[in-house]
């Protein structure tokens, strides 16, 4: 396998096949669902907030490896962090976590989780990176 394949396996497929923070919360303070109609990716994010921090965060839904892996990585990173930090997350942060280059179509797969998270937390419903122009 080539370098790209290895990168894909180590990073994305690890999270896709062994997702962290997968599931739903029984009494979430924040719950939000979104979809990427182009691919049929669907995602729900549940958050329990305690003292301004993300006490628990879970993701559920289905879709391609990139959308699901991005959700897993994002939840893993944000659990325990101040909710306020969600605001500062950018699309570059997500791409850095995924670690591979993506074309414009797959970019939407990658950003669905962050879009869902920001919409749930702050009602920001534009695609990350397009907020200014939208």
């Amino acid at each position, binding site marked *: *396998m*080539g370098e*790209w*394949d290895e990168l*894909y*396996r180590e990073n994305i*497929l690890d999270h896709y096949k062994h997702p962290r923070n997968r599931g739903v919360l029984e009494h979430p303070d924040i719950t939000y669902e979104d979809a990427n109609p*182009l*691919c*049929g990716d669907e995602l729900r994010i549940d958050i329990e907030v305690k003292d301004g921090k993300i006490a628990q965060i879970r993701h559920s839904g289905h*879709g*391609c*490896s*990139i959308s699901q892996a991005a959700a897993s990585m994002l939840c893993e990173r944000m659990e325990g962090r101040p909710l306020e930090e969600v605001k500062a997350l950018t699309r570059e942060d997500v791409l850095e976590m995924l670690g591979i280059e993506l074309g414009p*179509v*797959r970019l939407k*797969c990658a950003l669905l989780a962050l879009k869902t998270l920001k919409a749930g937390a702050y009602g920001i419903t534009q695609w990350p990176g397009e907020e200014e122009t939208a």
Partner: protein
Amino acid sequence: MSSPPAGTTIAPATSRKRFDPREVRGRFPLLTATRERPLVYLDSAATSQKPESVLAAMDDYYRRYNANIHRGIYAIAEEATAAYEDARARLARFVGAPPREVIFTRNSTEAINLVAYAWGRSVLKRGDAVVLTVMEHHSNLVPWHILAAERGIELRFIPMTDGGELELEALPGLLADGRVRLVGVVHISNVLGTVNPVEEIARQAHAAGALVLVDASQSVPHMPVDVKALGCDFLALTGHKMLGPTGIGALWARRELLEAMPPFLGGGEMIREVKLEGSKWNELPWKFEAGTMPIAEAVGLRAAVAFCVELGMDAIFEHDRSLATYALERLREVPDLRILGPPAEKRGGVVAFELGDIHPHDVATVLDHHGIAVRAGHHCAMPLHDRLGVPASARASFHCYSVPEDVDALVEGLHHARKVFG
């Protein structure tokens, strides 16, 4: 040609030109360009590649006789007008129609919208019904959704089998109450490759007093199509899938229908006389061609038609089908692969599939890293995917320049995708 030796079977006059796809491939600059990794292009159902002759024709127009058509009284304007109208004449002959009945549009979508707006809005009234099929491209669904919401007309659908064929047994029931004014059907499915029995559908529709619209986006580029033989009333086609440029397509319709229809877009060229209070429409086909038309694209399409005629549409269809047959055979070697759609003898050069539980976008991404271009998604046919119970699929599709080695590369790439995701 010398006469064949006695005792040999003489092939009928209509048959069988053949071409060498490798030689044909050499005439497509994009496919012969040197690149880091060879390109395996398997997305011709989305858009075909363009031969040198098409590129040269468009370039020649812009470099040598670029001028607006129909009104310029000088040599290059007359040359441009002649080329544009000759493009119409050749396209018309290509589908067995008189030039006057061929309207240039941007693409098939615009051709179908023209029917929905100009014919639909002047003819359909509350309580009328339009029959479509479950396997339509969104372009032959959404214009009717808009009209249905506006006019209170009812949409009915010819269902589809699990194997991706229309259930024609349902058609008499759909037509029975006499309220159906139009039956719209895709000639070749852009997802499944199914070649639909348009002639039979047209026969039944006409017997029930309905007109017939054929979405020929995938058929005109790949098989001989004759509007009279099909027995339809409207036919929509697009240039960029038939080796021509984007931005040009056509609507064919029977003359009486076009005469009776009001214009679609208003503007220059489509009028005979304009006063401040109103205008009189131009004659056919210009009544439906408002504003400056895509002249270079028409010139490019003319070259594309010439290319198709040279290869022979029978030969192109046979070539596509033999590749589809080969692909269906080879794809069976890939474990967990499920083909959507009918057996090879009922399809054109399109093969959609699922690979285990790997998302089609993931399949396409891995293939892309091996230089293989396939389509993944719902291919603008969400109801078809809903019917088959799959959210999306991957699709390989062919044209005259495709070769068996493209299929071999696909099969190898799919084995590799399984390894990556394994």
